[in-house]
């Protein structure tokens, strides 16, 4: 989509034109959803978070500076919506004992033939506290101090959660590579493959400082 076309669409959204809103939604649906999917457990909750984000976009569109890149603004809103959702569901956020993953051997990840869906499914399998920190640090590029501020945790907890997230992801990649373990292709497929999901869970709050 060209810059002029985008601005025309945004001006329509400022005037609360429903057609323009839908066009903007459709145009950035994939981008917004890709962010929300990384933070969410599944597609339905990702869609819920994304819609909250778009609601913010449509209700605060007049505050958007047309000279700045819209995609970055939208991405920021989607990330914030995801963090809000995470915070609102903190009670549900459990972290796992990772003793088993600690001494795992590291392989060459880049060489493995893992698809977008495989990797997304792995990230979605992470407990929300690890997943959120991993997303913010590894993909969005925030520092532990910034993440600490955003999630109301200290930087040490952020580091610890990132470490545990990585360990878990490594574990999952190894398992995906094993011939009998199946693949991470869909929401349904990966569920049985996570063998250590149930036992030894501790409340997330206990880990935080």
């Amino acid at each position: 989509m060209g810059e002029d076309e985008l601005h025309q669409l945004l001006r329509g959204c400022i005037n609360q034109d429903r057609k323009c809103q839908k066009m903007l939604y459709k145009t950035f649906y994939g981008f917004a959803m890709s962010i929300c999917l990384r933070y969410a457990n599944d597609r339905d909750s990702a869609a819920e978070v994304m819609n909250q984000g778009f609601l913010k976009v449509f209700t605060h569109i007049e505050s958007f500076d047309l000279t700045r890149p819209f995609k970055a603004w939208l991405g920021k809103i989607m990330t914030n919506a995801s963090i809000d959702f995470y915070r609102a569901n903190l009670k549900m956020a459990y972290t796992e004992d990772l003793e088993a993953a600690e001494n795992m051997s590291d392989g060459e990840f880049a060489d493995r033939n893992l698809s977008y869906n495989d990797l997304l499914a792995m990230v979605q399998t992470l407990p929300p506290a690890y997943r959120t920190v991993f997303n913010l640090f590894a993909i969005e590029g925030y520092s532990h101090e910034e993440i600490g501020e955003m999630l109301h945790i200290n930087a040490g907890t952020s580091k610890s959660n990132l470490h545990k997230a990585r360990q878990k992801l490594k574990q999952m990649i190894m398992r995906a590579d094993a011939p009998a373990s199946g693949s991470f292709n869909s929401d349904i497929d990966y569920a049985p493959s996570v063998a250590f999901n149930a036992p030894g869970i501790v409340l997330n709050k206990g880990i935080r400082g």
Partner: protein
Amino acid sequence: MNNEKDKKLDDLFKKKLEDTDDQIGYREEDWDSLEAMLDKRKKRRAVIYLWPVVTGIAAALLLFLGWWLFKPIEKNSNNLTVSSHVVKSNNSTTNNNPASIATTTTASKQNDVLPAKTHTPAIDSSGSKPANLAINAPAKNSRPINQSPVLIVDKSANPTPAFKSDAAAATNKLKPQSGANLIEATKPATNQLANVVDPTIDKDRNATVAVVTQTPNPPTAPGNRTDENSALKTGKPTEQTISSGEKSQAAMSRLLAGSAAQNNKVSAKTIASFRPRFALNAIGAEDANGAGSFQQAKAGNKAGVFFSAAISRKFSITTGTLYSSTPYAAAYGDYNFPYQFKNDPVSVSANCKMLDIPLNVGYQVYSRGRNTVTLGTGLSSYVMLQQSFNFSYAGYGGTSSSSYTAPNSGSYLFKILNLNATYQRQISSRGGITIQPYLKLPLANVGYGQVKLQTTGVALGVNWNLGSSKP
């Protein structure tokens, strides 16, 4: 080494998970649910925008009502001042003949005229006073010209707009007679009035109505109205006056009923969309009361119970009962007693024991933590329980005084405008404390002395939440 591997892991995910628009298929149902959210929000915003309109209409209605009720009363007090002035100068002998309007047509002496100036309570509050004035004034031999018929002209030049032309007609008839020789002028002038009173000439009869209607009765005194009706039955023009007075009274009650119906509609609508919360409030108040102004304000006090219902996050309706002890003092001219004094008192002080029944609407303008501030307005009704008066007279040997306790003189429905601001601090989930400065402005004369009683003060109280769902 470990860091490098971590970096590789991060990069793997970053590369594959970032910017993968095309991997995710669009779902129409996601847009449907967002559209539903947008629609819901739009409706809620529409309701929010509607509130200022509703409150604006209510405020405008209240202002109009206030103006409407104030207007005739101001006129009345004006005439009262003039009439008391005349009475003073006459230093009267009393005669209780009420039907003397028609019979005073040939009056040329003061004594002949005076019977028209009746001193029964019924006549005094009647609409015939200006007519009497018209006759009285020329008979005052000792008065200079500007207090002869010209005085009437001044008064009749200030009629209600509806009667303006008729009043002017009456004035024109009188004007040529206000000549140099007062004694001679008196006779034709009163003859003119006789013509005016003559019911056979339609046009002139209207003129009479115009003159007479200048002192409409205070709408607050239905008791007096009945008396006056029976006392003045003989005078046909006066009957007309009463009927026009009744018309305006009926119009007023229709207006009040209309506004009440509108309020009911609004509250019914509001109640339908919000879950009401209720609270009970016990208050005690200290206030300053003044008749006409706060120049001679006296301290009074109130105590009572309020019940309030929050019909939305911002709006609440409050009603209750306050026992009020209200002392006040004012110059005699500020009162309108239903009887005439032989010697006018210099000042009158009073103490009213009454029930104040307010019906107020509150709008929450501030709410933070445990503190809320609400602005309120509404109308109060006064139910008089006991009224005692103390009259001070200026005599040759200094001042003297006498007192009088008036019987229960009835109730005054929605005759007081309430304005208040309420600060409330929540102490616990069960309740809190309340501080409320308030101002009560009269829309009509109240009490046996028919004064414009205004009150300002501060109420302190405690409130309990009834049936609050919050812990």
